[in-house]
């Protein structure tokens, strides 16, 4: 057991009948680090994130999150972590403030209104706090989703494609903000993304998955060098196209 681990996954496996979605995945994400979880469609990233969040029970293996065994004590871990994905919406008819208030209650955040004001200022939401979530632009929705994910000051943040569908300017703003937030808060981040430039910029370590298995891992620069490529995108393509898997 690693006391400084934000996530410790050991032999994590998920099978649906004959299909193995995740196969013996083991890794340890240190506290305060930002790691990338990469892979093509169907590689097992979403299944892995679902198991880390406790919404899916592994067929084999176990996960400890922030020292809590997710099989026995997942609610203690869930109170200290959070999650954001463009594929899970917030109620569209509720205003931004109401949405944040709901999650401040669900996470039992002390001084909820002060926390919402703090997040509104940090993420530039002040002007849209009273606007229904359904009337926001993609960039505004991303910032609101981030505010929701940060409402409980998490020690671990799971982000599933945080900048998907954002224009380059807004995407860059979000990435800069995440970098700064991690430095200031010491929060560990596991980031699933298809944007390799984003991963190279944010992540100190990358887990590459293919067909449910961990096929390569290391610092982005190290992987690029190991595969003899110029950038992480080419490494990703090599792995996706079986050119040098396991290099």
């Amino acid at each position, binding site marked *: 057991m690693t006391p400084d681990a934000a996530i410790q996954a050991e032999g994590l496996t998920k099978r649906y009948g004959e299909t193995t979605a995740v196969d013996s995945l083991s890794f340890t994400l240190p506290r305060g680090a930002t790691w990338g979880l990469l892979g093509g469609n169907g590689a097992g990233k979403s299944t892995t994130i679902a198991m880390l969040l406790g919404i899916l029970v592994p067929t084999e293996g176990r996960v400890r999150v922030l020292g809590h065994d997710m099989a026995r004590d997942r609610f203690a871990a869930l109170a200290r972590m959070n999650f954001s994905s463009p594929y899970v919406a*917030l109620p569209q008819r509720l205003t931004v403030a*109401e949405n944040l208030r709901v999650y401040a209650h*669900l996470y039992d955040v002390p001084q909820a209104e002060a926390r919402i004001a703090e997040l509104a200022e940090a993420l530039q939401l002040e002007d849209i706090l009273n606007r229904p979530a359904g009337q926001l632009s993609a960039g505004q929705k991303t910032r609101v989703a981030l505010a929701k994910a940060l409402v409980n000051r998490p020690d671990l943040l799971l982000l599933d494609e945080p900048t998907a569908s954002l224009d380059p300017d807004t995407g860059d703003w979000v990435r800069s903000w995440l970098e700064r937030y991690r430095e200031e808060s010491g929060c560990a981040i596991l980031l699933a993304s298809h944007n390799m430039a984003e991963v190279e910029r944010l992540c100190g370590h990358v887990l590459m998955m293919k067909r449910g298995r961990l096929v390569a891992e290391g610092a982005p620069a190290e992987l690029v060098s190991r595969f003899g490529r110029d950038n992480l995108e080419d490494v990703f393509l090599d792995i996706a196209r079986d050119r040098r898997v396991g290099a």
Partner: protein
Amino acid sequence: MRASLRRIWGLVYRHLALYRRSWPRLLELMYWPVLQMLVWGFVTAYLAGVQQNTASVAAGVLLGGVLLWEVALRSQMGFAITFLEEIWSRNLGHIFVSPLRPGELVAGLVVMATLRMLVGVLPAVGLAWLLYGFGLFALGPVVVLFFAALMMMGWAVALGVTAMILRHGAGAEPLAWSVLFGLTPFACVFYPLSTLPAALQWVAQAIPAAHVFEGMRAALLQGRVDLWHLGAAFVLDLLWLALLGRVFLGQFEAARRSGALLSIGE
């Protein structure tokens, strides 16, 4: 305990905020109970006119039945539809990865079901008194117990419906509207339990509502509180809540294992 209550309030607040800015939803809550009451009110007015006094007592039984049955219907629908609202808004993923425990989710749904039932049924009760002179609460404090027993039955059925939605996804949604209507013949809303064929009387005896309506008729026709039927209704409620509560929790865990929570809206 305080944190638990706060999480329950978070879920309730989310739905209150939704209703606050959606008057069609509020109107829909009142629409069916009021419509049912109007139709049955005219039927009872007609019966009372044709057969004078004897029928006016029967008319009270009909209107009382309609209004009380709405308590069970609205409680069941209120619970199940509040859960469905989370699926429709694609918010369930956030709810299930928050620290909200399954028991707290159920408690939040029960609170919303109660509020939805009160908003839907109380205007119909008031209109029945205004339009037809039928005062449901004239039966006395026992009406509160009738309400409670029927609400509990509604929650129990809704736990079963929600378990089916967890298992079968959106395909089980129609159950949220239809399942309790299927129990109406056995609930003895408009006729005594003895009217049913002997074999079906056994089925009816297992349904809390059948005992509530026997109790309602005793109160309306004989002016007495039938403690046996009232007690039977509550005991059955507790049994059904315990059984279907276990089914719900079992299905929730099964959905975590099968991955159904990830695709519940499909």
